[in-house]
């Protein structure tokens, strides 16, 4: 019941703004595919094109062999879409919203109850409550139930975890993994880099362009250069002090309680001594320098700086 998605040389302009620039990619049936990037990367525009809510300036998209422009009616039947902004009817109850969306697709809550059971059960005690009176987490579950009620083969979730706390985000991803097992193809966008590792494959996006597409493992393993982490007693001065040591010490970024930097030319076994002694001269104490493994955010930062 899953579908393949193919995007070829897709461009979308809004007057002078190029929201998407020559985007090409394939998503395999049953994949959980992530679009990772900040606000303005073009994630929402891309999803609106796939769901046939916008027309491309050029290029093509096919879902299950259907064209997003000429076969849009068929594609809409195949697709479940949860937009970034909550867009159900606030003055309808939970149950009324679900029945309404089911009836649009000529089905009913009763008929497809089994499809949404796991998620809907959690909000069913509040089925007589108006959608406008639900908490953020419950709204999200209702929106997801509505997106799934017509048994879509392709589920598109636009930033479902934005503004959601770290624990609820983890729970939401567990839910997605479970849903994926039913065979549905899932596209999900997120600005949280750490969520990339939960996807089968990801596209890293920035300013309308795809900078990399691959499995999260391959992306982090192909990080160019050696990555180091350093920690001292004076983290505030560390960034500028690191910058003054050597031209080969680049991509200096704070990462939680450490600072990451990258070297490409310096001999590997000289780096930690060089950095530690230079920092000591500048008054740092408790200096720890060690090699570390890249995360998706390291890769994203490196790609942004290219």
């Amino acid at each position: 019941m899953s579908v393949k998605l193919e995007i070829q040389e897709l461009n979308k302009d809004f007057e002078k703004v190029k929201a998407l620039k020559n985007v090409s990619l394939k998503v395999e049936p049953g994949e959980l595919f992530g679009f990772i990037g900040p606000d303005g990367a073009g994630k929402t525009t891309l999803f609106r094109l796939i769901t046939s809510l916008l027309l491309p300036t050029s290029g093509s998209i096919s879902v299950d062999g259907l064209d997003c422009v000429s076969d849009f009616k068929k594609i809409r039947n195949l697709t479940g879409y949860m937009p970034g902004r909550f867009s159900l009817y606030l003055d309808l109850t939970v149950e009324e919203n679900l029945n309404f969306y089911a009836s649009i697709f000529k089905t009913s809550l009763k008929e497809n109850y089994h499809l949404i059971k796991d998620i809907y059960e959690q909000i069913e005690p509040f089925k007589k409550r108006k959608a406008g009176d639900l908490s953020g987490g419950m709204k999200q579950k209702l929106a997801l139930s509505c997106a799934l009620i017509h048994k879509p083969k392709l589920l598109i979730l636009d930033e479902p975890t934005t503004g959601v706390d770290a624990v609820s985000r983890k729970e939401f991803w567990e839910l997605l993994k479970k849903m994926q097992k039913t065979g549905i193809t899932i596209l999900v966008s997120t600005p949280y880099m750490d969520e990339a590792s939960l996807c089968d494959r990801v596209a890293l996006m920035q300013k309308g362009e795809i900078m990399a597409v691959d499995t999260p493992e391959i992306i982090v393993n192909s990080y160019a250069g050696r990555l180091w982490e350093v920690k001292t007693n004076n983290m505030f001065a560390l960034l500028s002090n690191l910058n003054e040591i050597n031209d080969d010490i680049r991509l200096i970024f704070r990462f939680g309680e450490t600072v990451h930097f990258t070297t490409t030319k310096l001999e590997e076994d000289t780096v930690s001594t060089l950095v530690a002694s230079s920092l000591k001269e500048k008054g740092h104490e408790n200096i720890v320098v060690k090699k570390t493994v890249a995360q998706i955010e390291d890769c994203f930062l490196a790609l942004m700086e290219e």
Partner: protein
Amino acid sequence: MNKEENIIVVENLVKKFGNFVANDNLNFEVKKGEIFGFLGANGAGKTTAIKILSGLSKPTSGKAIVAGFDVSRETDEVKKNIGYMSQRFSLYDDLTVKENFRFYGGIYRLSNKEIREKTEFMLNKLGMTDYRDMLLKKIPLGWKQKLAFSVAGMHDPAVVFLDEPTGGVDPITRRQFWEMIYEKADEGTTVFVTTHYMDEAEYCQRVSIMAEGRIEALDTPAMLKKQFGVKTMDEVFVKIARV
């Protein structure tokens, strides 16, 4: 003023909505120039507490002093001495950059001269002098957030409240934003910040974590990790917030 001075003092603060206890006996202090992370799951009661501390909502019982003023009785004084920005609401999209500065400067009762000087100074610092006449809605989110932070601090308030200031912002701009926070705190402004990025919790001097209306943990990131026997703030957060 010295660095040890408490800018926020909260004692036995309770806020109820009907039978629901949104803030259940909060007690904490925040020092001058401190960067204080205010974390918690959605619905834990953070927004309620911030509304009380910024004079927008009154506590049911207990006391909160912000910049020397009582939030229940001296709300106008509290509002004059704080700055506020969030991801959802910061500046006006249909005003230009300069107009936003002028509008907020006016609200904070700065003189025309002060507004002009501050505007020039901050646009220079942000490298945005060429964008002064551009409408806010044309400006990318990351820049908008930096502008909003500058505006929230233009009247040199004792405290700035930042409610998820970096949500959706790209990773480079997110780090630049934190550089701005450090600088502001260094000048003596207290920064009270909420975030869902756990790496940012590490950038705070102290962090409190709320769950179900109560503050369940409050300490430096290093001490919290030690206390819970874990390596990252993410794990601390999960231990506390996963009920």
